[in-house]
């Protein structure tokens, strides 16, 4: 513990330095007409983006909230949701060269499909119900970062509002409004390892209050040759995988604002070559191995005033998730002449609706009550052998339907204390019922200091794959599988030391019971998802942020955490004990150039097999510039010092190598109206 605390020294040095800097800087309001009409006239007010009109926002949630703004995305060069999230205090990323995974509070077990998060786009839940994944965080997340106005992240339980999966964190991606990005925008991006991407977007005013944003992008990433030491044997080309890391696909997004209607359409598809599959009898370096997936939705949301009785919001949506893969397996020993071509297919379609009524309560606060229901038309999983002979291995369809009722109430206890209570009841035809309470106590000690204590009891239903999939070889179904439950406690304090310097401390403990994990059945010795473990994750997070004179900004954070299996008292795989991040940005040349750098240090982690991987230190640089009107150029270097490191993964191998140093260049043109 002592050694870990010693790693906090950079923050200890930084804090007083920044505080001293802040005291010396000029306060522009000093000596000015306070509280006067003239002050109102002179005050520079922040531009309010129409994205604030999106009906769901987490910013006012009684929890520890981090917001990544469009400006952060631009300045630090976040090109995927995964990159943006990995910059956040206590978050870390893992990549198995097919999907990107995000861990928080030390929990990101290899083989898990990001099931303990909730990811939303403008409040639309992105969880599909085959694997309970969230669309993941790389290019398979079908929204381009250029369209993001902000990313809101709340830590801890949000099941009391959003139901299943909102256990460790809830991430709401708020898109830019059609009126906030006027005109045409075209960008082109190229990067190391053959990455190429183009994006086109346009916003048009259609008249009568209708504003439309349309965006489409296409990408084609060549990938790189990957060395897999475990396969460094002659039949497997000495462990080298050539031309089997590519990725192609498209993203499209449309948003129509028309009066009180907000209509969103999101269509995307991606194909990824898979260098290493989960099953160890997959043909190595097989050019045909790939996955293709996509998640589409259309949502119409409406908000209406009902006079003194408050606001009524309702939305209707239709979602469609598709997954296909193809893998070749050895029939017999590796290298034998017989290969079986297998294809998998998953289809999930559902439609739903949500009604929320926000009404004033005793003139002091709002109470929110709502109901949500959705109906799956298909939850289909198929697996079949195509050659040498065609036969079905798995074929089942288990559509579910769900209903939820929820309420959230804010109680003001005097001027400083506020209590938030939330309760949600979920009923699922396939997975049973769950009651999720949440209680938050907020103490506003002064305008610059606030403390929050939050308790929640979130849950995660098993996915259809975990409960029903059975090929009797790689996995066997478990009809008795039930939801994971957790008790989460968080205590946080936020203090503004000065107008430019803010500090946050967050202490938490999550206890998860009935963690769903793979185990072998006693009778058949075949893997099966079971409610196995009880785990406890505890930790402390510190963060300081400073916005200094001249636009120089600094953000440093440290997260110390420990996750243990309460039955074995052992740690979990892929659970770093410490995560340290520091980023700084500086505008130059009259705001026409912005230089930034980010440093991260993730402490050692162990793999599923118990192998310890060394700590990882990475540094990125990003330079953004606007050389001429309408054009902007961004140049970035990732893994600047070309560190060689691997991530723990749940595949046929225990670890897989990550990208070395890479460089990217992005050029964006916006028409005159948009600049």
């Amino acid at each position, binding site marked *: 513990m002592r050694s870990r605390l010693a790693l906090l020294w950079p923050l200890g040095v930084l804090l007083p330095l920044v505080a001293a800097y802040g005291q010396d800087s000029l306060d522009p309001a000093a000596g*000015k007409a306070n509280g006067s009409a003239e002050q109102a*006239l002179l005050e520079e007010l922040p531009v309010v983006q129409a994205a604030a009109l999106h009906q769901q926002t987490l910013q006012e949630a009684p929890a520890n909230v981090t917001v990544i703004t469009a400006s952060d995305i631009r300045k630090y060069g976040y090109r995927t949701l995964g990159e943006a999230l990995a910059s956040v205090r206590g978050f870390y990323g893992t990549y198995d060269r097919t999907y990107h995974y995000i861990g928080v509070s030390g929990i990101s077990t290899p083989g898990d499909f990001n099931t303990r998060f909730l990811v939303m786009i403008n409040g639309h839940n992105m969880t599909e119900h085959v694997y309970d994944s969230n669309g993941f965080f790389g290019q398979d997340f079908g929204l381009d970062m250029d369209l993001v106005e902000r990313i809101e992240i709340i830590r801890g339980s949000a099941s009391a509002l959003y139901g299943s999966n909102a256990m460790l964190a809830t991430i709401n991606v708020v898109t830019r409004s059609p009126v906030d990005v006027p005109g045409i925008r075209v960008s082109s991006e190229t990067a190391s390892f053959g990455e190429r991407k183009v994006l086109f977007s346009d916003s048009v005013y259609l008249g009568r209050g209708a504003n439309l944003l349309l965006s489409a992008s296409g990408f084609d990433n060549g990938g790189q040759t990957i060395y897999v030491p475990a396969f460094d044997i002659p039949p497997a080309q000495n462990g080298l995988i050539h031309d089997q890391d590519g990725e192609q696909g498209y993203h499209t997004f449309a948003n129509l604002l028309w009066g009180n209607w907000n209509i969103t359409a999101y269509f995307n598809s991606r194909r990824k070559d898979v260098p290493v599959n989960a099953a160890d009898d997959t043909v190595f370096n097989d050019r045909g191995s790939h996955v293709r997936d996509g998640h589409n939705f259309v949502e119409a949301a409406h908000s209406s005033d009902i006079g003194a009785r408050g606001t009524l919001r309702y939305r209707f949506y239709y979602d469609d998730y598709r997954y296909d893969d193809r893998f070749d397996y050895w029939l017999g020993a590796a290298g034998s002449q017989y290969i079986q071509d297998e294809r998998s297919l998953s289809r999930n379609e559902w439609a739903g609706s949500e009604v929320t009524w926000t009404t004033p309560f005793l003139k002091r606060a709002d109470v929110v009550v709502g109901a949500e229901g959705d109906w799956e038309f298909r939850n289909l999983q198929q697996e079949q052998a195509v050659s040498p002979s065609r036969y079905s291995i798995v074929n089942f369809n288990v559509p579910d339907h769900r209903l939820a009722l929820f309420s959230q109430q804010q109680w003001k206890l005097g001027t400083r204390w506020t209590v938030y209570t939330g309760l949600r009841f979920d009923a699922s035809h396939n997975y049973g019922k769950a009651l999720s309470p949440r209680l938050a106590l907020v103490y506003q000690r002064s305008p610059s200091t606030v403390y929050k204590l939050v308790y929640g009891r979130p849950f995660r239903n098993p996915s259809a794959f975990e409960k029903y999939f059975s090929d009797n070889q790689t996995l066997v179904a478990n009809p008795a599988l039930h939801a994971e439950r957790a008790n989460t406690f968080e205590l946080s304090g936020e203090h503004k030391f000065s107008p430019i310097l803010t500090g946050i401390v967050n202490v938490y403990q999550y206890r998860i019971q009935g963690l769903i994990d793979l185990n072998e059945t006693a009778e058949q010795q075949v893997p099966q998802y079971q409610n196995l473990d009880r785990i406890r994750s505890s930790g402390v997070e510190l963060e300081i942020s400073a916005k200094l004179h001249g636009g120089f900004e600094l953000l440093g954070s440290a997260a110390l955490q420990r996750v243990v299996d309460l039955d074995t008292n052992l740690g979990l795989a892929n659970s770093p004990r410490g995560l340290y991040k520091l980023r700084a940005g500086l505008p130059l040349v009259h705001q026409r150039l912005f230089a930034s750098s980010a440093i991260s240090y993730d402490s050692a982690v162990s793999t599923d097999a118990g192998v310890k991987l060394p700590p990882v230190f990475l540094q990125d640089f990003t330079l953004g510039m606007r050389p001429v009107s309408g054009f902007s150029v961004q140049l970035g270097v990732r893994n600047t010092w070309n560190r060689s490191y691997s991530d723990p993964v749940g595949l046929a191998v225990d670890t897989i190598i990550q990208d070395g140093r890479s460089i990217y260049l992005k050029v964006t043109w916006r028409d005159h109206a948009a600049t």
Partner: protein
Amino acid sequence: MQLPSSESPRLQRVRMTRRASLASLLATVFLPAVRTFAGTARITIVTASAGAPHASALGGLQQVLSAHSVVSDVFALPGAEAALDQALKSGASQLAIAIGIDAVRALAARKAQIPVLATMVFRADLKDSAAPDIAGFQLAGSVWLDLSLSQIVAGLRVVFPAANRVGVILRPTQANPPGMAGVTVHRVDCAGPADLLPALRTLRGQVDFVACLPDSVLYNKTTVEPLIVASLEHRLPLVGYSASFVKAGAALGVYPDFGEIGRQTADIAEHCLAASGGTRDETPRRTVVTVNERVLHLLGREYRDNGQTDVVVIR
């Protein structure tokens, strides 16, 4: 030889104002605290802010005045207060022009023995400004920032001629605006920021526009986002009191032309120096109307820029 300009008078005026603002800002930043122009200064101009409105007013003043000295940003720039003391004691100045209430306070605190012309000042601010301090000096005249509701409505009607129901949110201590022919004014009382959104909600369906009058207690960096979001949700377009408010998300703004206030003040100053006795109180003789096109589009309203009117469009 100057070629005839094809630009509209509005555009020329906007460019002139911008140039004047830019020149003043640059001068404020790069020149020392006291600067003297055109020989012996008979007029001392005092500013207490480098904000754009004050810089525009200073630019307008300097376009007209010949012999003057400027003490800039009296509370912030090093040496500015000492420079002001010296300018007042030298005896050369026959008139001081205070731009903004803080400049008035700076002069009042020094018990200036020369007449003071206050400009870019709200009446209420001067009234609230510790009467004993202010009472001591000789006020030669003033150009107020206050716009009457009828001036605001006139500006509003340049863009939306049919607007005839206007809401106004005032603190309980503020007086009722005078009635106007052909316009229904709905007043809503609001004790403080916590009551701002409920006050706005009561105007739903009652008014075409909500006029926001300058009040830093009700309208500031903290309250502006929820206020603007609520105005969009409730379809209540806001009429802001500054360019910054319009950029932030008010549908349109009506506010004084600050460069013109500078020129107006200069005219009064010349009059004060030429003739003795009497004070002149004036309100802004020219207003600027600004529309925020993206907000109008969100609200389903359209403004057709025909180039004939003095309207600035923010896109």
